């Protein structure tokens, strides 16, 4: 197990290097001179040249990249062109805001999704089942920003219950959380439904029925626990999805999170901020994925063989063939 974890952590290094290289490449091919952009049109050529030297833009791209990576390893993500502040100190407080929304959204999505999934599994192949699936699919297929706009039109413009944007009060969090949460319901409903149906077909459920357990007892004490294994695993995926999809949502609700920070930086061509924000999100995503994979094994020890040893055996076999 420990060896597996170490191997996975080592595998993160090339991925993160690759991610930073891709974004760094995008930055270097962008037309326009960052130095000119910082100083504005009034600056003289000498001032611009001086600034270029100061920013290290005259170095070869490889040197710039290596310098950046060395900086990142020391916790230095560069300085924002716009404010001159270190990118890291701008991102960290925003991460907290994004994390709050993400966690709230996952909670809403998971609770509603699991409930609906149980209902549709118990009422399988009836109209209730189809209705639940169609509704949850609706929220999954419609873009989040459209759902967000509809919620704003209902709760902020017509009813005046919730603020249309910003998170000055706790109320401001409700709509962003709800929007992301609704979008993730469908995957939970589906997973819960299929997993529940599978578990309900197992022998130990039949035994429980034969012993004369009530149907409610069977559902909640015997079936639900095993149903939760794949559900718990999908929470990790949806954490990552909502964090990555935060850019559009945070812009719609003007929530000062990492997503909005990156969008603002993209439109202002503020590349150190884009690079820092994107790298930060990539780091969080790969770490979440790693934790999810490890938690797979902790929740369901049966997977130990398939993930750790079985997986590698299979690849060996494939290589031999």
């Amino acid at each position, binding site marked *: 197990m420990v060896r597996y974890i170490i191997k996975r952590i080592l595998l993160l290094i090339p991925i993160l290097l690759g991610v930073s290289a891709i974004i760094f490449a995008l930055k270097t091919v962008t037309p326009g001179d960052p130095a000119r952009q910082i100083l504005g049109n009034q600056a003289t050529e000498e001032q611009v040249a001086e600034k270029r030297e100061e920013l290290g833009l005259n170095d070869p791209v490889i040197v710039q990249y290596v310098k950046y990576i060395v900086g990142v390893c020391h916790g230095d993500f560069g300085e924002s062109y716009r404010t001159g502040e270190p990118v890291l100190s701008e991102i960290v407080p925003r991460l907290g805001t994004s994390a709050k929304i993400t966690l709230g959204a996952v909670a809403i999505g998971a609770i509603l999704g699991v409930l609906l999934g149980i209902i549709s599994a118990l009422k399988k192949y009836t109209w209730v089942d189809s209705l639940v699936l169609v509704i949850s699919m609706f929220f999954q297929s419609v873009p989040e920003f459209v759902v967000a706009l509809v919620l704003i039109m209902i709760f902020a413009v017509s009813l005046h219950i919730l603020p249309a944007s910003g998170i000055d009060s706790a109320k401001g969090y409700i709509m962003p959380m709800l929007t992301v949460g609704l979008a993730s319901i469908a995957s939970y409903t589906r997973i819960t439904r299929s997993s529940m149906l599978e578990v309900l077909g197992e022998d130990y459920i039949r035994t429980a029925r034969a012993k004369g357990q009530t149907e409610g007892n069977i559902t909640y004490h015997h079936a639900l626990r095993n149903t939760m294994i794949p559900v718990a695993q999908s929470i990790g995926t949806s954490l990552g999805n909502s964090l990555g999809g935060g850019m559009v949502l945070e812009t*719609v609700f003007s929530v000062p999170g990492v997503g909005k920070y990156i*969008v603002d930086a*993209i439109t202002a061509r503020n590349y150190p901020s884009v690079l820092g924000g994107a790298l930060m999100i990539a780091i969080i995503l790969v770490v979440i994925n790693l934790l999810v994979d490890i938690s797979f094994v902790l929740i369901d020890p049966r997977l130990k063989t398939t993930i750790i040893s079985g997986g590698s055996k299979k690849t060996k076999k494939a290589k031999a063939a």
Partner: protein
Amino acid sequence: MAKMHTPAMEKIERKNAKRKKPVKSTPSYEAWKRFKRNPTALVGLVVVCLLILVAIFAPLIAPYDYQVQDFTAMIQKPSSAHLFGTDHLGRDIFSRCIYGARYSLIIALFCTIAAFFSGGLLGIIAGYFGGKVDTIIMRIMDIFQAIPMIMMAMCIVAVLGNGIPQLVAAIMFASMPTMARNNRAAILRVRGNDYIESSEAIGVGQVQMIIKHMIPNAVGVMIIYFVGFLAVSIMMMSSMSYIGVGLAAPTPEWGLILNDGKAYMTQAPYMMMFPALMIMITCFAFNLMGDGLRDAFDPRLK
């Protein structure tokens, strides 16, 4: 023992003879039969067909030009002259929404085709050759996948600028890892079959093998991804245009129309209502259809 011929038996025989009509049974026909039984999928299909018709006949349906500005009729409520009302420049929102179908569907189609020819092809190559080629391609895709799709697309648009070809390129790049993964899996499922081995044994060339023997058998799964990705690209396109990183202003794309209406949300909510409705209907219909296709082509995936 001699065969008995009672009237009742003759009746049964006649019935059987009637039934023995040759039944067409190809995998795609079976899939269509399953698809037909799925009411939600059929609704999706009908709506998608209607949208395609609207897109084709947009100039005939739309009463006004989508970009003509009429300053005598700005921000008007929906009426018989302007079904969906007019926007802040006096443009007819109904006409813009109708043309929006044309733009959204065509751009989505281009994005999907581009994605299949880049990521999809990489996946097919990785799946077919396996070994080192597979490892190298998929490790690179792992790196791309660590960047969220929409963030990748927005960064590329930031580099290339707003516009239709730029947007297509951005969505193509961003979707590469997912496309590669899906198509690789589709090819791998075919690869294990015995007939592939026998084709190899009689010396079928590699290109011919992929095009003639593998893709036709993986086509069901690929259709599912194709329709699914149409929906994804419409979603991404409208989301990106809405926050101003995607298409440029006069294009009647639904996300852009929504963006125009944003400032007038309180005084003229219909400016956002109708384009939002169009996006919802389109995305939902494509997803319903895609879901039905998945169940029809591959009942095991359900």
